[in-house]
């Protein structure tokens, strides 16, 4: 079974809605250990994504993700912009020209995205960044793929792992980004970027579960 361009669009639209809804929450997390703008930045970015996607909804998966990446790079700024922008640009590059993609392709693309984030931000695991949500999610997805799980189960498991990774940032001392200025004072707070990354993967799993494959097929 596969993920269609339509499901990718519904994922991005769903995540945009989630970010808008969680704007204050994400900003609050960032105010505690950063500069209090993460939700604002991400919301500005994904509102732009919606605008840029509207005219190209029928494009292939790769170009949808690249469009998203460009929109984020050009509108978010801060650390989130280059990081999420690179994530989507790299993921999109991995899926060039595909109208629909299999579970393994999708996971590989997410992994390429993570690789881009790490190259751009040079964060290691447990530095208390978005990497701490993304990396375990990819690991878990790979494991489920290996066990032959369904696409839905793979993405649900990835989202669960991201959630655990997000929560696991709370006791960590930040070593990257603004939060690292706080040293010990960063301990006890959940990382905003890890939180937005978890929400992103949960939105992916939800949209794929929500839009049954056949329905989507019929529209392509």
């Amino acid at each position, binding site marked *: 079974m596969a993920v269609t361009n339509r499901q990718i669009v519904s994922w991005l639209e769903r995540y945009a809605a989630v970010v808008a809804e969680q704007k204050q929450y994400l900003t609050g997390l960032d105010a505690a250990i950063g500069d209090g*703008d993460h939700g604002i930045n991400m919301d500005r970015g994904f509102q732009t994504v919606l605008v840029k996607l509207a005219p190209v909804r029928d494009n292939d998966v790769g170009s949808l993700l690249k469009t998203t990446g460009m929109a984020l790079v050009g509108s978010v*700024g*801060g*650390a989130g912009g*280059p990081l999420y*922008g690179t994530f989507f640009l790299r993921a999109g590059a991995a899926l060039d020209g595909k109208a629909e993609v299999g579970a393994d392709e999708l996971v590989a693309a997410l992994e390429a995205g993570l690789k881009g984030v790490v190259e751009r*931000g040079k964060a290691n695991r447990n530095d208390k960044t978005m990497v701490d949500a993304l990396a375990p999610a990819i690991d878990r997805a790979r494991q489920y793929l290996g066990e032959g799980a369904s696409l839905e189960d793979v993405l649900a498991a990835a989202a669960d792992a991201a959630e655990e990774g997000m929560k696991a940032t709370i006791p960590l001392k930040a070593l990257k980004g603004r939060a690292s200025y706080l040293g010990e004072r960063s301990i006890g707070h959940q990382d905003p970027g890890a939180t937005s990354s978890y929400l992103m993967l949960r939105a992916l799993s939800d949209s794929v579960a929500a839009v049954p494959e056949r329905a989507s097929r019929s529209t392509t």
Partner: protein
Amino acid sequence: MAQAAVTTRLKKLINTPETEVRDALEGMAAAHADLIRVEFDPNVIIRKDAPRKGKVGLVSGGGSGHEPMHGGYVGLGMLDAACPGAVFTSPTPDQMARATKAVDGGAGVLHIVKNYTGDIMNFEMAAELARGEGAKVNAVVTNDDVAVQDSLYTAGRRGVGVTVLLEKIVGGCAEAGADLETVTNLAKKVNANGRSMGMALTSCIVPAAGKPTFDIADDEMELGIGIHGEPGRERTKLKSADEIAEVLTSTVVNDLPFKRGDEVLAFVNGMGGTPLIELYVVYNAVNKYLSGQGIKISRSLVGSYITSLEMAGCSVTLLKLDSETTKFWDAPVHTPALRWGV
């Protein structure tokens, strides 16, 4: 208390949080049409006569809310272009790429970047784009804030007050016709010889957030505050101006360290909500402390030049001067915010 503070400090002379930056840029364009032109989407403030053939182009940028930095420093003898991001959020690569193209006079372009993860990454992406189009681009990162310890375990010291002094001094050098390598090396020298530390009496409010970035009691102050309201070294009881000046200045002096006999540029900066009379009170204490240490102030700057919206507080920056940096500090400058010799 906090609640009261919130609502009280929410008072701003703006139309909407979304339009604040654009409205201010239009105001700047109208007020300083003789010096700058402003392009929108992507937002860039460009020296009116850019590109200057054969002159190294200087491009800086950062979040808005620090005015006059950086847009107020575009003009003769300082920056060729500035890229204003959203409030407290670094600008995007397309802005810096456009600025780089607009000011490239063939001698290359220097990006002046404050050390924040977001600024670094966005400028990096911009440099990659610009180089892709064949531009010669160097970057220098300012990281003078001694409140943050520079170690493998942090993103490194933040770029603050020295950035303003660097833009002026390096701007004088570029105006004199130096090549990209010379300009780049001078920039590194200035950054290496400057240190800063700030403090806040009150928080600022990011308009889009609508409430103070941090709560602070009426008898407290935040020592080592960042220019985005990032918490600093410690939260202490409010002290007298003399005590505050001594903490900031001694920490700065001991970090470089500045030594007996050094000649320095002493820069006492207001955070945006602090009146000038208080900055002179602080400067007086800084001056007394330094003379006690046998450190000579040969140049000074007192005013609100790198701010944090309406935050009340101040920062102290010291830059060790030599004949080269002194010469370029004294060189003519004509920008919206700094002007002399012309």
